[in-house]
């Protein structure tokens, strides 16, 4: 965990003991809905959505832990997390599909994933950071990347997920390949972390079903399903084009999208 920033003594004398908790700067601020800075309409599956944790999803709850021991390499946990934060698109394999927020992976920042969905940085300190997912994402939950020294003093890089499938469609997809994709993504990520620091990159995976019950009351989450909404949007594109041709250019559309010359 991050060290507390030393406070000037004179301030302590004047104002008394500090009431601000040490972790205050590490957490995202509460907002009811996610706001994506930049071009309006560029992230329809994220903008205006609520964040969802493992308690809001539909499917079974899983805790997945992937870790790699950077044995024989002299690297501090802080350095591992800093590298992951700075080079996340490349190390995770998402590449350009992962749009880094302008200010980096700081608490409250929103990163977009291939135009389909995104994640919000819920928590970030020197030795860990956590993403939380929005409504419509395949999973509802948290993904935490951290690094620590094990009992033999070797640095360990770890990714830990606490997730449920967000809705019944994603839950159906879990045994049909979604589990495997998720496992491979984070195993490869940690493999790349190990390779970056010159370690052998053997990955240890531990998967636990924390809650085998499905939350049927969350069936309604399907209305936000990013895959379904994006597919519907794509299918209806010709219809929207025909309508535009028939009615002429929409003033509203031009106003909403400043990149097409609308009124700011």
């Amino acid at each position, binding site marked *: 965990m991050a060290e507390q920033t030393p406070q000037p003594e004179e301030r302590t004398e004047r104002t008394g003991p500090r009431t601000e908790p040490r972790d205050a700067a590490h957490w995202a601020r509460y907002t009811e809905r996610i706001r994506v800075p930049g071009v309006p309409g560029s992230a329809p599956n994220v903008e205006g959505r609520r964040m969802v*944790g493992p*308690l809001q999803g539909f499917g079974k709850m899983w*805790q997945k832990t992937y870790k790699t021991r950077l044995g024989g390499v002299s690297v501090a946990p802080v350095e591992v997390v800093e590298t992951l934060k700075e080079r996340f698109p490349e190390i995770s394999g998402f590449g350009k599909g992962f749009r880094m927020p302008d200010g980096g992976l700081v608490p409250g920042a929103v990163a977009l994933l291939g135009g389909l969905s995104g994640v919000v940085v819920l928590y970030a300190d020197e030795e860990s950071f956590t993403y939380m997912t929005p409504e419509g994402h395949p999973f509802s939950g*948290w993904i935490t990347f951290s690094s620590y020294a094990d009992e033999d003093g070797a640095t360990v890089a770890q990714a830990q997920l*606490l997730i449920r499938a967000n809705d019944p469609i994603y839950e159906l997809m879990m045994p049909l390949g979604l589990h495997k994709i998720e496992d491979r993504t984070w195993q490869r990520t940690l493999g790349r972390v190990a390779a970056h620091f010159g370690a052998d990159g053997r990955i240890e995976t531990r998967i636990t079903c924390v*809650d085998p019950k499905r939350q049927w009351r969350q069936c309604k989450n399907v209305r936000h399903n990013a895959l379904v909404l994006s597919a519907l949007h794509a299918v209806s594109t010709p219809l929207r084009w025909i309508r535009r041709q028939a009615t002429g250019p929409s003033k509203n559309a031009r106003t909403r999208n400043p990149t097409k010359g609308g009124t700011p």
Partner: protein
Amino acid sequence: MNAETEDLPGALHALRCEFEGIREIKRTRRSEMPQAQITMDVRRVSAKVSVVDVKGELTAFAEGVLMDAYGQASEGGVRGIVMNFEGLEYMNSSGIGLLVTLLIRVNREKQKLLIYGLSDHYQSIFQITRLDDAIAIHDSEEDAVKAAST
């Protein structure tokens, strides 16, 4: 080094010294490893309700302490577990994860989990992580115990 090792031939002696050196480094690193900076005292306030007083830092290292406290608080058919967070000094995302797994365990045992004593800062963390959807947050111990008893 004892007398036995001093009698060893040169190369073996050097090897033995190196081995002792590595053991010493490992001992030092182990003592420097982060430990749970938290205590959880359990009080039985009624036949059906226990209160857990949390003091310190809720991080991944608190897992053992939290689960031990839960085990102790559940003894004797307790139906309500009330957690007092007045002494909470630090919490990270792993700490929040521990609360989720505790909640699942409590629900599985058909018990209730209630919380009081959260500062404004930690209340907002419960909001953003949406734990407040699933865990009842109360202003005082009296309210929480009353709700746990019903």
